[in-house]
């Protein structure tokens, strides 16, 4: 699967932007004062990872990466729901 020069450049630029988004979301994951803040950052991190994997499928021409994106989306949802449930039901009574 060969791409024209301009299309390749644009896709590589998109990958760079997704990398920057990963970095910013990770900064919120480190900083975020409360547990739900970190859960939101983790959720965004996995969503960006799904997008990054899909874009990388275009760059590499390998369809397998799309399957990776599917699995990542499934796992991310389960993880977020588990964290939310733990936060709501597992917190000590105040």
């Amino acid at each position: 699967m060969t791409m024209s020069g301009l299309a390749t450049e644009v896709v590589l630029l998109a990958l760079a932007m997704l990398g920057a988004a990963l970095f910013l979301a990770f900064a919120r994951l480190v900083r975020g004062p409360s547990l739900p803040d970190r859960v939101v950052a983790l959720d965004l991190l996995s969503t960006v990872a799904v997008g990054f994997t899909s874009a990388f499928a275009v760059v590499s021409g390998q369809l397998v990466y799309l399957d990776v994106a599917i699995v990542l989306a499934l796992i991310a949802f389960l993880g977020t729901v588990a964290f939310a449930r733990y936060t709501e039901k597992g917190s000590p009574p105040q």
Partner: protein
Amino acid sequence: MMALVGAGFLFVGALFMLLAAVGVLRMPDLFTRMQASTKAATLGVGCILLGVTLHFDTLAVTTRALAVIAFVFLTAPVAAHMIARAAYFVGVPLWEGTVIDELRGHYNRETHTLGSPSHLAGQPAAGHREPEPDASDNA
């Protein structure tokens, strides 16, 4: 030509995701951060997968991409609602510039169900620590 359109969709999707990440980093409290991340990131994933579909233009890729789009569009609001609900119960503070909190006093802390304030009278207020009526804006 089709590859260029697909690359354009990829770029727009990456732009939305970058904006979502900037919003998550810069917004003042959890709930505004969440509205930045959930909506923009979901739209970004949709655009990126649309770009992938246009780029490959085969049935196998289109099916998988549509599956991911449908799944993300269905699950992102559910996940966001669960985090927001949990955060509200735990008492994550609102931004000090918040104008209105329509849920205040409507949640029963024991059963985690909704009710009207009169119905819940005499029970501890759920969610946020009840701020003093006059000095609530400088917390």
